[in-house]
């Protein structure tokens, strides 16, 4: 009995240590006045993912745009929106980029954060290798649809279209397979295991360039109008604790994006080696109809409304200010009377 008491005490010590370690971590992360004074060298830890979507982050990195604003960026790359979300929750990073659905799932569960910038509007589409599939009703029970993960933008778009065409948002829950984009693209092209892939550039372009592939439905049809494929999210701790660094972050992203939008040729040349593509191909992808790097948010509320009705989240934001920081709230505005066009862009049509 004495021995088991000893073991229990060991475990208690261990758990206590864990609590202390965590608590200690958060107190040391709260900026001391000294650190505030050194705002010139303010560190910012940024979580991104790989792909064409993240071109502005790559440009910012190459051109040292964050450094220009006195920030010291630490770049971290993750494999999915959920992984970015986990990095933000665990305090590993200050800001991160993810799709609106993963962001809202976190907000619904109480993650202390809001959207800081829109990031890009990107063509997303469901591509199939089966010529007889013309719409969602043509999928047979065993047909598998690959998408990056449950709860991803692609998953929610599929649910939106399923509700529209079949009357049930969850009609395809048994069809979905979680696969990273490169694997799914390979499987779709070689017709191994999956019949369709809900994907983004450059995989859409690659897949559609093979014979026998066609597009079943695109994002704008699912959502009703264009939406931000990705948003930049900042934790409350970073936003409240470092208002200057937060403002610099927003400005640095804006500058990187403005540079891409005004120098697409140069951007293609700069980024081609990063993607392992030729300059021509990179340029073609950057200028594909529908690609739009913009800090304007699109569709934040539309996703929330749908996800709450379909049961993916429990809470729905009362207004944009529940899920977006001041700069976005001011950007979208609040027109008296009829909502303004940019306000309407936050919802589905």
């Amino acid at each position: 009995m004495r021995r088991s008491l000893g073991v229990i005490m060991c475990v208690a010590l261990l758990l206590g240590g864990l609590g202390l370690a965590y608590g200690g971590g958060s107190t040391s992360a709260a900026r001391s006045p000294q650190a505030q004074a050194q705002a010139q060298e303010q560190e910012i830890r940024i979580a991104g993912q790989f792909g064409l979507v993240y071109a502005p982050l790559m440009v910012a990195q190459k051109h040292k745009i964050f450094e220009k604003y006195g920030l010291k960026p630490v770049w971290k790359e993750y494999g999915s929106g959920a992984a970015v979300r986990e990095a933000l929750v665990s305090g590993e990073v200050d800001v991160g980029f993810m799709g609106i659905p993963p962001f809202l799932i976190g907000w619904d569960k109480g993650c202390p954060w809001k959207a800081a910038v829109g990031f890009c509007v990107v063509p997303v589409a469901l591509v199939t290798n089966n010529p007889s599939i013309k719409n969602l009703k043509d999928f047979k029970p065993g047909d598998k649809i690959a998408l990056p993960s449950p709860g991803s933008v692609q998953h929610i778009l599929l649910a939106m279209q399923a509700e529209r065409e079949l009357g049930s948002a969850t009609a395809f829950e048994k069809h979905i397979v979680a696969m990273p984009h490169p694997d799914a693209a390979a499987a779709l092209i070689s017709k191994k295991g999956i019949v369709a892939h809900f994907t983004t550039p450059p995989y859409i372009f690659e897949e559609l360039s093979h014979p026998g592939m066609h597009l079943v439905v695109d994002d704008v049809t699912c959502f009703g109008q264009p939406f931000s494929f990705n948003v930049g999210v900042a934790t409350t701790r970073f936003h409240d604790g470092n208002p200057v660094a937060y403002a610099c972050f927003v400005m640095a992203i804006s500058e990187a994006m403005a540079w891409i939008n005004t120098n697409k040729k140069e951007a293609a040349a700069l980024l081609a080696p990063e993607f392992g593509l030729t300059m021509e191909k990179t340029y073609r992808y950057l200028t594909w109809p529908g690609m739009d790097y913009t800090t304007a948010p699109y569709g934040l509320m539309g996703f929330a409304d749908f996800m709450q009705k379909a049961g993916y989240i429990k809470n729905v934001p009362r207004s944009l200010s529940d899920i977006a920081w001041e700069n976005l709230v001011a950007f979208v505005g609040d027109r008296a009377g009829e909502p303004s066009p940019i306000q309407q862009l936050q919802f589905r049509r």
Partner: protein
Amino acid sequence: MIRLRRLVTANVRTLRQALFVTTLAGLWELAARAGRLPALLLPPFSDVAVALATETASGEILGRLGFSLALVGVGLGLAVLSAVLVTAAAMSARIVSEWVQTLMAILHPLPGIAVLPIVILWLGTGYRSIAAVIWFAAVWPLVVNLHTGLRSVPATQIEVGRNLGLRGLHLVAEVLIPGAFPHILSGMRVAWARAWQALVAAEMVFGASGGEGGLGWFIYKRRFFMEIPGVFAGMIVIVLVGLIVERALFDSVEARTVRRWGMTQE
């Protein structure tokens, strides 16, 4: 009263363990409720229990569990079958035995999950790939133990069997298998543990889908919807199944065979 006391003394180890686990759960609850750790990182144990109850009531966990067990059954069954065939071949010719030993040396250290990318390439995604990974994880410990077990049966015992007139399959069934049983049993234990781990790992890494996913997929999905109590609930079910198979199945088989025959030191 005496009966009750006897029951208590017989199960005092189990009781102590139950007390220990309850204490752990209590400490977990306290640590989570203390408020230093955000509930997103460590949900209180009670939330996990609620998640476990609701997911069980909705049939979700049982369905996933059934799928996982069926998959392990297929993978493990195939592994046993192929291990028996391989060992039989190895026992019949010295050169085959050498080949098998070389192959074992090469492939045994490779974790089942490491072959997943190749398996997916060959078999596509879905349950066949996962069954193949389970097969791979389980077959080598089985072969190793069957092989050493059969070889460790003393020659005198085999001779005695022969003198009693046992031949062929009779000799195998009456002398060789009982003689090798401690090894066979420990091979099965290792194979089961590796198969169960491989299943969960394979489902979580890749190749699981909504229609045909087990407990690994359950955890994977809960993670992506940030339902952390659900993630813990899935983990608890995995642990429970492991414990039940270990305790209820292997321990009772061991008590009825190897221990009764006086083949273990314990």
